[in-house]
């Protein structure tokens, strides 16, 4: 029995490693077929980051982490919130307007804007939730449509709300006043780049996520619904309410995704605001198996790959887009590896149960 558990444990740890190795092999194959230098690319990507690189990795991992947690909340109950992308963009835009207008002084303004972002994110996700609960529209389709609608809506209002920025021909909202910006930490004396203050918020969100999912009634209901909807209904869980609430919660966290960028780096929402974070979040949530620590590792891995591939174009004349293939393949190989491990685990368990029964059987015969 303990032997089987040990075997299973080694498989669980082995799975992500196996998946990473496979992903690297596949990427190498693509590089080789395309005629790019395989060793050169890996040499660059797997080298130690620069001091500035470390800061960049932590910063983008912070943003990825929030996005992935937002997705993971839905995943835990089999809800696919593909719409984190639209939710964070529309929420960041509203927060930028609110913070830029500065109705409240100093950090009150920051808190107010962040709350507004969470509210807007929740509302945007809530549309999909309501459609799912009342009309049975799959949240996969509705959130994808809402992403596209968010793009149009934000572009429209951005043009209306945009102000002139000196020396730039991109349009953006009014800048957030100095007093409401969130200061960062310095890594060391010689590196001017700063780590976002929002990294603390991301850690807090991770802890709260763990507590809510694992230690509360709500979290239990959520996981129960995700594992078996029929069983959840039978035990008195209002599944419709759960769908709506988790969608709102997921959207609220999605509203936070753009905040580190807004208050720590950009200070306004413009046409150059980073996009596509929601889709990265889906991949990272899958990679981290919806576990707060797993997601953190996944976010760091993705941020690491992004940062290390940046100089590829200059150094080796290789498009940095190659790591997007790696990232996609990692997602696929990780889920495949886990599936293989799960099947093997079940097989091992069945064998151990069969063995235990065989040991048991003769005793009963003696009794009879």
């Amino acid at each position: 029995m303990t032997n089987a558990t040990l075997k299973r444990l080694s498989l669980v740890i082995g799975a992500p490693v196996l998946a990473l190795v496979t992903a690297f092999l596949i990427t190498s194959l693509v590089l080789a077929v395309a005629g790019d230098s395989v060793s050169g690319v890996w040499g660059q990507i797997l080298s130690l980051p620069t001091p500035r690189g470390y800061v960049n990795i932590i910063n983008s991992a912070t943003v990825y982490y929030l996005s992935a947690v937002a997705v993971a909340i839905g995943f835990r109950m089999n809800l696919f919130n593909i719409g984190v992308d639209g939710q964070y963009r529309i929420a960041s835009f509203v927060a930028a307007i609110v913070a830029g207008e500065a109705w409240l002084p100093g950090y009150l303004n920051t808190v107010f804007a962040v709350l507004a972002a969470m509210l807007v994110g929740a509302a945007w996700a809530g549309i999909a939730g309501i459609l799912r609960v009342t009309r049975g529209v799959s949240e996969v389709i509705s959130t994808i449509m809402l992403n596209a609608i968010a793009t149009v809506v934000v572009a429209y209002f951005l043009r209306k709300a945009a102000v002139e920025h000196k020396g730039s021909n991109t349009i953006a909202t009014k800048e957030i006043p100095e007093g409401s910006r969130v200061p960062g930490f310095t890594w060391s004396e010689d590196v001017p780049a700063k780590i976002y203050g929002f990294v603390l918020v991301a850690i807090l969100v991770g802890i709260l996520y763990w507590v809510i999912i694992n230690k509360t009634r709500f979290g239990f209901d959520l996981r129960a619904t995700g594992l078996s909807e029929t069983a959840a209904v039978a035990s008195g869980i209002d599944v419709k309410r759960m769908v709506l609430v988790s969608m709102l919660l997921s959207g609220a966290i999605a509203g936070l995704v753009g905040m580190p960028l807004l208050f720590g780096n950009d200070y306004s929402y413009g046409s150059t605001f980073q996009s596509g974070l929601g889709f990265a979040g889906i991949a990272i949530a899958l990679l981290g198996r919806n576990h707060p620590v797993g997601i953190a590792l996944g976010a760091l891995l993705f941020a690491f790959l992004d940062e290390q591939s940046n100089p590829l174009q200059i150094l080796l004349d290789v498009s940095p887009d190659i790591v997007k293939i790696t990232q996609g393949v990692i997602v696929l190989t990780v889920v495949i590896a886990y599936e293989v491990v799960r099947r093997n685990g079940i097989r091992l368990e069945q064998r151990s149960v069969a063995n235990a029964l065989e040991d048991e059987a003769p005793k009963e015969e003696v009794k009879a």
Partner: protein
Amino acid sequence: MSIVTAPLDEPLQPEPRKRRKLSVAWLLIGFAVFMLLMSLLRVATGANDLNSSGTIRATIIAAIPIGLAGLGGLWSERAGIVNIGLEGMMILGTFGAGYFGYFYGPWQGVVGAIAFGAIGGLLHAIATVTFGVDHIVSGVAINIIGLGAVQYLAVLAFTGVPGGGQTQSPRIDDLPSVTISALSNPLGDLEQKHWFLVSDLAAFVRAFVNNLSLLTLISLALFFFTYWVLWRTTFGLRLRSCGESPAAAESLGVNVIRYKFIAVLISGGFAGLAGGFLALVASNTFREGQTGGRGYIGLAAMIFGNWRPSGLLAGAGLFGYTDTLRLRGGGESIHGLMLLIAVLLLLVAAWQWRKANRISALVSAILGIVVAVWFFATESVPEDLTGMTPYLTTLLVLALASQRLRMPAADGKTYRKGSAG
């Protein structure tokens, strides 16, 4: 009023509902009603571009990639595999068309598009059928891989090529197209008269006889081909049985795993062709970001069409049409369309009220009134906002129709060989 009278009109014992099939007659009646509505709308709003032959032609070109992507979805979902990776496969298809189309010729481009899409299908099949990974997870991964791969390959293939660049191919040669000028010219004259209904019909027919690409015709034929294969052959029956009840299918000797694998491969081919159509017919070049989410809209069109080719064709037409109006007439045409939406919403409200669905009737009525007020209060829809018409239409249609839809019973469920027990 109807609260009291409606139950009395109906027989006390509800008769067993007849299954209403979408026969040819129904399709023709639907088409006639649609033409009548459109000509009424054109006359009422004065937006002549609502159904000119140019608009219809553009609609066909806009609808076919969506429809082909939807066919891709249909093939795999009928075999029980949800395919949200259509978008990624379509992106692969645009590159396949761009690469083979530019370096070898347009027909080779078509083959390249199908082949590249099928590679995406192969990935999806290995992940979902062989390894039993969650279908949506695999689809999301394929979308990421497809996008990344094409961005990477485009830099390799087209940098330094005359007329090409890191994100686009040079111009690809045209595929041959057909014009029947004996019909096209007189119909064109008739259309210019703007007579009620007659001109509208002329415009509709003219769109099909004037400068139509061969690939368009082939694509239209593929809808009928799909219907024939899936609903009129043994192969199709077996394939669909894998989507409805794989355990039963396997107990009858169907090789479920093989059928699912083939279906997903074909699905990828269709999605690739959809991308190829964008590159070869709709624009003559490969460009990054050319698909613009059409894979997802194709999936929505298929759901809207209740997992059937005829419904899918109607859905694709609807999305293609709203997309076209946005590009051609812009705000004015979309504004005209709002009247239609308002009327349809109010009709739905009345119908739901009759069926005693009070809440949905009220919601539809309120939405309808809002749209109507918006229509009468404004002259045009802001140009920037017209971009969301296809997506908003999708949401609206799904919200109104999704409860009458039935997907294949085992759709999205992982099947393992030997589960029949």
